[in-house]
């Protein structure tokens, strides 16, 4: 994600839940949010790639952030959603989240760059922490989330 902007500017994030933790995704990368649907498995790919879905005639890959981040595998519930992201480098891709909560607007001074003492493997997926109404939102660095495992 780009350098966080000058103080006073704001960024909008969509707040999602994975387990008990709240994560934020920069709204400018979000193309669409769709309900969970049948995902066609693609064989011989990394486990975090769940397969492909048909989104209005387009075949779009779907990945599990949970598996990618080393969390428990997804359990499909009523509130499970697929967020369709449009990224310059990777094209369109869907990510599965447990729940989509709300949209928040964060002032840049509400965003704290990630400190180095946080958990090692998690750090690489985050680009900052947002403070909002007392709660903390981990802001996802989408490019590293989506990046293929080496």
């Amino acid at each position, binding site marked *: 994600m780009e350098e966080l902007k000058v103080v006073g500017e704001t960024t909008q994030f969509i707040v999602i839940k994975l387990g008990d933790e709240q994560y934020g995704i920069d709204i400018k990368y979000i193309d669409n949010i769709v309900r969970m649907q*049948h995902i*066609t*498995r*693609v*064989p*011989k*790919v*990394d486990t975090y*790639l769940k*397969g*492909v*879905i*048909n989104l*209005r*005639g*387009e*075949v*779009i*890959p779907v990945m599990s952030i949970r598996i990618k981040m080393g969390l428990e595998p997804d359990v499909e519930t009523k509130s499970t959603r697929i967020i369709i992201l449009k990224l310059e480098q*990777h*094209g*369109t*891709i869907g990510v599965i989240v447990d729940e989509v909560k709300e949209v928040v607007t964060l002032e840049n001074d509400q965003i704290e760059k990630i400190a180095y003492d946080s958990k090692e493997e998690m750090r690489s997926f985050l680009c900052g922490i947002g403070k909002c109404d007392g709660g903390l939102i981990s802001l996802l660095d989408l490019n590293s989330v*989506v990046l*293929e495992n080496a």
Partner: protein
Amino acid sequence: MDVSQYLEIFLDETNEHLQNLNTQILSLEQEPDNMDTINEIFRAAHSLKGMAGTMGYKRMQNLTHDMENVFSEVRNGNITVKASMIDVLFQCLDALEEYNTNIRENADEGTNDNEPLIKELNLILNGETDDGEEDSAEAVEEEVAAPASTGDTGGRKWLEIKLGDSELNVLKEASKQGKNVLGLTVKVQESCILKAARAFLVFKAIEENGEIIMSNPSAQDIEDEKFELDFSLIIVSDASLEQVLTAARSVSEIEDVIGDVMDLDHVSAPVHEAAKEAPAKTEQETKPAETPAPVAAPAAPAAAAKPQTKTKKKADEKKAPANKPVVNRTVRVDIEKLDTLMNLVSELIIAKNSLVSASAVSGTSSTTVNEQIEYLESVTTSLHESVMKVRMVPIESTVSKFPRMVRDLQKTLGKKMELYMSGEETELDRTVVDEIGDPLMHLLRNSADHGLESAELRKERGKPEVGSIFLEAYQDGNNVVIEVRDDGNGIDTEAVRNKAIEKGIITPEQAENMSEKDSIDLLFHAGFSTAKVVSDVSGRGVGLDVVKSKIEALSGEVEVKSKLGEGSSWIIRLPLTLAIIQALMVDIGNEKYAISLGSIQTIEDISPNDVKLVEAKEVIQLRDLVIPLIRLNRILDIESKKDPNDNLVVVVVKKGDKQAGLVVDELIGQQEIVIKSLGKYISKCKIISGATVLGDGEVALILDANTLI
């Protein structure tokens, strides 16, 4: 008249006509006596002239006008087709192409008058025609030729209009009702550029005062500018002669309008030919307002035609379209609009399927609901299919310009060669077809220039003097293959390596260890050219690497096969990114997969006892052939649903000479599917060549049989 809005259409159609002319003139060269070809050329040249004129491209119009004159003479049998003439004609086409390019880039035709060409055209004309006949060249242009002499009518050309029975009746009827029957001849100023537009304004002005019964030339011809400087009309009007004349004269760039009240008793006797032509034309002039575009629109129904003429019209309508260009039957659509349409159709199908399941769940499935859903199903399926097919075009539109190019190359290179093409009907997505032209052209030029030897050398080597270049297109599994092959010298890998060392691309040490294939790949290196002399055909060293990057941009690949002394072939494989293929749908575990029908040989029912082991691998014996078995469920990591003791369903696929048997759970059936890419993100999985959206909105993966073998 603002013509900029027609610019797109103009450019597209000009291209089409030029392409058509190229093809036709080529075939004219083969058979100089083919009347159909000559007529077709004449028509295309004529349309070009008309279009250029309407758009105000004077130079282009002049050139086409002179070309048309030549064709018209050829058509009349006054000139015989000669090789020198064909050359001049081709040069003209190139010049027109140049105009077209200029117009596309700057909306201006440029300043090149191409006078030498026009002179040559006139030389052809004069060289073959006697003095008197030159006029006829002009006159023939008007398909309904008007009698030449105007002396006795004193410019009152309307007197020459031949009236049929029905028109005569209309006129007499009108005259009985106390209306004036007037004859008019309108003369347009010589400097007038848009004659058709002026004529249209005159028509409009006169129609405000009365009704046009007849015109000479016909309204259609006038609209197409198929007239010189004057045209004549017969009208019925309540207004006086003076009023009508003033109205017509008020149009600018009209030199003069002369007219008189007609004496119906003395009009020329009915001529059958004229009677046949006329009624169909009158209907055109009632509504010219709708067709000011350079594209000739289909005949608008007559609004005000008299009842008497109506009965005849039906029969005549069949005749009328024959004169019109065929282009009217197509509509040009922006490809983005098709994409949108396609996506909407997919959405519709998904919605339909939700409807099906919803009605099943709610339990309200009465017969009527089911019937309607089934009907909806068949409609959406056909809709889906039609929309998908719309995007596919045969590669013909791109490759049809190559015979002409090879012919030119033959002259510039001084080698004898022949181009053989096949598979022009192979369909590809429109965008790919548009892009593939340049790379193919490079390859053909390359074959002609570097591949083929000179006639003497060929003779020495015991080959036929005339070299052959083949351009073959066909579908192979999930690819469309376009092959450019020649029977020339082949690639001298030794020379290639030496050249590469010389250019500093590789070191001599590297060269020693290079395989044949790697050496050939050097050809695709940027800035590499083995031609000793830089010709304007090829040998600038930009060709092959451009070819490669272009093909790769279309996610295709280029393969080279070559045998020194026997020729080389360049094989372009393009994935059918948006192509439709026939596929066999199969069930494996709980998943559906598609296998391209093209790679399937047979489908066999094999008992588990017939499966043998060879080197610890499962094989079956089929008609004296031992074929390895591939259990797809293992490769795809799926649990098979089948009882291991049941007979195996084996889909036998082939790749070249090799065969393999794919074991699947069940066959679902044959289906036409659209191939969609899985995207870059999932590119690791080689055995899956793509995905397709099934009728129910679900995604099924397409197995690439080639990688399995």
